[in-house]
């Protein structure tokens, strides 16, 4: 909503007041940045030694490998979650109560349970003491279950967002239920869902950081040995966070681009209503 509708065009007094606010904000922000830099300098965080590791080729390689592992976990989890979500999302749309209710239960369960709880459970159950899964796969499995449950809701919302007439027309042509779903509803729904799907990658990518707790490889896991060796906790935290933010912003830009290409200015499925923000509930 444009602010200008709510109030009259600002007069000279208001403009002067706004200018004062602008100056004050700039001063406060500058003071904050200055204070942060002063603290960093004062505690000796800005010395070359503490930052050198981040352009030492051997360590850059290690961090690059960690980033690759993080991406591997995120995309592996999302790919598996798509399968999981498709099965249970369509399950929730089923006409048979025997399929619908178990699907509902599975989706609700995995959406309400913290990813970290899932991750630790899977780690203790299937990894520790010669279990079949490596910590990396524990992270992928936990993220698959959680994101799959979220995506099931996205798929359901996507299929429901396809105009009713499409399915009715397909039935009128004599198609079977599975044909209607697979060749009419799903292909159209995918177009609506794609941006949400990419945004979900951001959530998954952020959650891979939880692998820290079960010593899975990844960016957060590599941060610990680095700061333990060089005692450069602050620079490490800053650099690793910057990497996460950059990758996430690239993913978000991709989601926006796909949205413009595929569905124009129309709103995508509102993920905040189906459980973006690391959870939530369906409408």
């Amino acid at each position, binding site marked *: 909503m444009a602010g200008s509708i709510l109030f009259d065009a600002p007069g000279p007094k208001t403009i002067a007041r706004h200018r004062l606010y*602008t100056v004050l904000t700039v001063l406060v922000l500058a003071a904050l940045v200055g204070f942060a830099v002063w603290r*960093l300098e004062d505690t000796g965080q800005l010395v070359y030694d503490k930052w050198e590791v981040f352009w030492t080729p051997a360590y850059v390689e290690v961090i690059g490998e960690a980033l690759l592992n993080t991406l591997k976990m995120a995309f592996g989890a999302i790919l598996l979650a798509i399968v999981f979500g498709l099965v249970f999302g369509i399950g929730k749309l089923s006409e048979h109560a025997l399929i619908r209710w178990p699907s509902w239960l599975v989706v609700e369960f995995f959406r309400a*349970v913290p990813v970290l709880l899932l991750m*630790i459970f899977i780690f203790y159950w299937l990894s520790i003491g010669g279990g079949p899964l490596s910590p990396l796969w524990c992270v992928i499995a936990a993220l698959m279950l959680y994101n799959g449950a979220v995506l099931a809701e996205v798929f359901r919302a996507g299929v429901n967002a396809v105009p009713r007439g499409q399915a009715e027309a397909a039935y009128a042509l004599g198609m079977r239920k599975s044909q209607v779903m697979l060749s009419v509803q799903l292909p159209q729904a995918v177009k609506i869902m794609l941006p949400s799907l990419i945004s979900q990658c951001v959530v998954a990518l952020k959650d891979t*950081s*939880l692998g820290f707790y079960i010593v899975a490889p990844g960016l957060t896991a590599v941060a610990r040995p680095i700061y333990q060796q060089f005692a450069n906790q602050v620079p490490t*935290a800053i650099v690793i966070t910057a990497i996460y933010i950059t990758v996430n912003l690239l993913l978000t830009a991709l989601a926006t681009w796909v949205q413009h290409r595929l569905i124009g200015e129309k709103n995508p499925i509102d993920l905040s209503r189906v459980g973006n923000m690391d959870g939530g509930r369906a*409408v």
Partner: protein
Amino acid sequence: MEAVFSNFDEYLKAFGLTLGLFVVSGLASLVFGLFLASLRVGPVGIMRKAAAVYVTVFRNTPLLMIFIFMAVAMPKLGYNFKFIEDFEIAGYSVSAFFFRSCLALTLYTSAFVAEAFRSGVNAVPVGQAEAGRAIGLTFTQSMRYVVLPQALRAVVPPLTSVQVALIKNTSVAAAFGMAEAVATMRAFNNDNADQRIQIFLLFAIGYILIVEVVSLASYALERRWKVA
């Protein structure tokens, strides 16, 4: 099963701590998020920009990294939050662990709360504000009687999903020295390897109960505020 039931007080204590983290950082994030949102819809350009940068940065940072900042990096800058333990109220004081966990959760959640508020204000159709202005309401009147009541209703569902996410996010504190539900489950797991699945289910049910109570409360609120 009996591993948990014979130590049921520990189970309750763990969820008490989870609830404590949730309530404190939930309220704090509502306040700070509302502040950020008001900056974002306000008329001063630089305030809008600053709030937008905050939201972008914190939304794209993993919560775990914010915890690393609070628990690992801040002490190196001379902030270990120990001062908070000096404040005593009726013999109780807040631990530094609890304080920095709430701080991390609040900083992270506020970004999402701000977005929820903003989307609530944006959900009010422009025509409503225009109509308010057209019948001669002032800025305050049109906000008070037209825009805000509708925005408040629109903001409940997204705000609920943010708070539900916060309940689950409190679990990250487990990695930084809080004996809340997830850390306690891990301890139970270490001691009773043969009852893993039951232990997991009992702790999962604890979380589901909390999430359901918050969701039901929000449904009730939504229904009560609904205009026919």
